[in-house]
């Protein structure tokens, strides 16, 4: 039994580093990433699981960090957008102008990165199904889809 009843030290694995945090047991992973670790790539949007701006990769799956307690993340591998360094996906987002205001970008990047890892052979329908988890209020969906599709196609050729 792992019981976390008051604020105390926890070790989180984030972007391949072991980091110490001291959240309340009721703090979400989103809150801890931003407020304790300064990893502000995961954005607070709706904080209701709808917009996807706070998406992180959790053991190779995209998860909305507003819908997860920090304590749940102990023992798991978390990747935020800060863990990406000059990836083909980031280049594709720039090449296809796949952002406008940019607030949703890190959420789309993490969702798409998880898709590329888990389903490198994804068809367009699968890609759309995964990207539907994220909202872009600037409505840049066409360019975002084009960017992700270009990386999928490049990997499949």
């Amino acid at each position, binding site marked *: *039994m*792992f*019981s*976390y*009843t*008051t604020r105390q030290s926890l070790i989180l694995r984030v972007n391949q580093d072991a980091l110490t945090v001291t959240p*309340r*047991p*009721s*703090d*979400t992973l989103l*809150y801890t990433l931003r407020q304790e670790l300064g990893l502000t790539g995961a954005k607070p949007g709706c*904080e*209701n*699981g709808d917009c*996807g701006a706070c*998406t992180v990769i*959790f053991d190779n*799956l*995209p*998860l*909305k960090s*507003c*819908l*997860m*307690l920090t*304590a*749940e993340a102990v023992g798991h591998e978390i990747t935020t957008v800060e863990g990406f360094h000059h990836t083909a996906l980031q280049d594709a987002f720039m090449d296809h102008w796949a952002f406008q205001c940019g607030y949703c970008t890190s959420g789309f990047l993490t*969702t798409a990165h998880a898709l590329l890892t888990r389903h490198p052979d994804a068809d367009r329908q699968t890609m759309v*199904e*995964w990207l*539907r*988890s*994220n909202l872009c209020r600037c409505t840049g969906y066409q360019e975002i889809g084009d960017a992700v599709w270009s990386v999928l196609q490049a990997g499949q050729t």
Partner: protein
Amino acid sequence: MIPFSFEYHQADSLEEAALVYQQIQASGQRPIYYGGGTEILTMARLAQIHFDAVIDIKQIPQCQRLERADDAIVFGAGVSLDRIGQANLWPLLSQAGARVADHSVRCKITLGGNLAGTLPYREAALPFMLFSSDAHGLVFGLGGSRDVPFKELFNGQLNLRPGEFLVELRVAQFAAEVPALSVKKTRLDWVDYPLFTVAMVRANSEIRVAFSGVTGCPFTSDAINRMLNAAGSGDDRARSAVAQISDPVVDDLHGSAKYRRFLLTRTLADMLAKIEE
């Protein structure tokens, strides 16, 4: 940020979960069981619910079962809807679960959480409702485990005794081998709360349906099933079936009751045509 504090306990076994629940309750505090937690956290953030501790049960090995065993398929209550879809042991459940929320959220929502939630939809229950004579649930509490027929366990909502939680659901293997469909209709976007969801099967030449989002909670009805199995065209049978709905049909911003009845009639007729091909 969640505006109040609570404890987090991650149980490794069924017994541990039930025991810590009792201990917390005995100390005058309010515990709740926690699966994916998506609804609990969103409601907590809005201070719509209050509790003192969550007991996370999804890591318990029995809650993580997802397998064929003997002549049944076993779904642990802690398994995510995404994992159920990936494994696809029961295509009808995969289909019904695949339209809950969005993909990322389905990586967190558990089968047990979908059935136990306060949202009225509980779409993952529909397939089990269609095979209620051949589906069972295993629940656990301080008194130990109980095997409960699905029709007793779920009548629109999960019926658990105080301190109990759902461990797993089982359905007979043949449920995965009959023609089946699940259709969700939304007002505009693909990802949205449903106008309704319909699950339909044809087993031994008999058609059965279950609904979510039409009235206040998921339901199936012998009267509706009789109408769908009567003689006549698909359109006529669908109209007669929808006319049998006696509870108030949901009338909200997503759609009026009249529109829901109209769309449900069309949807049933289309599903009949497809399943009877």
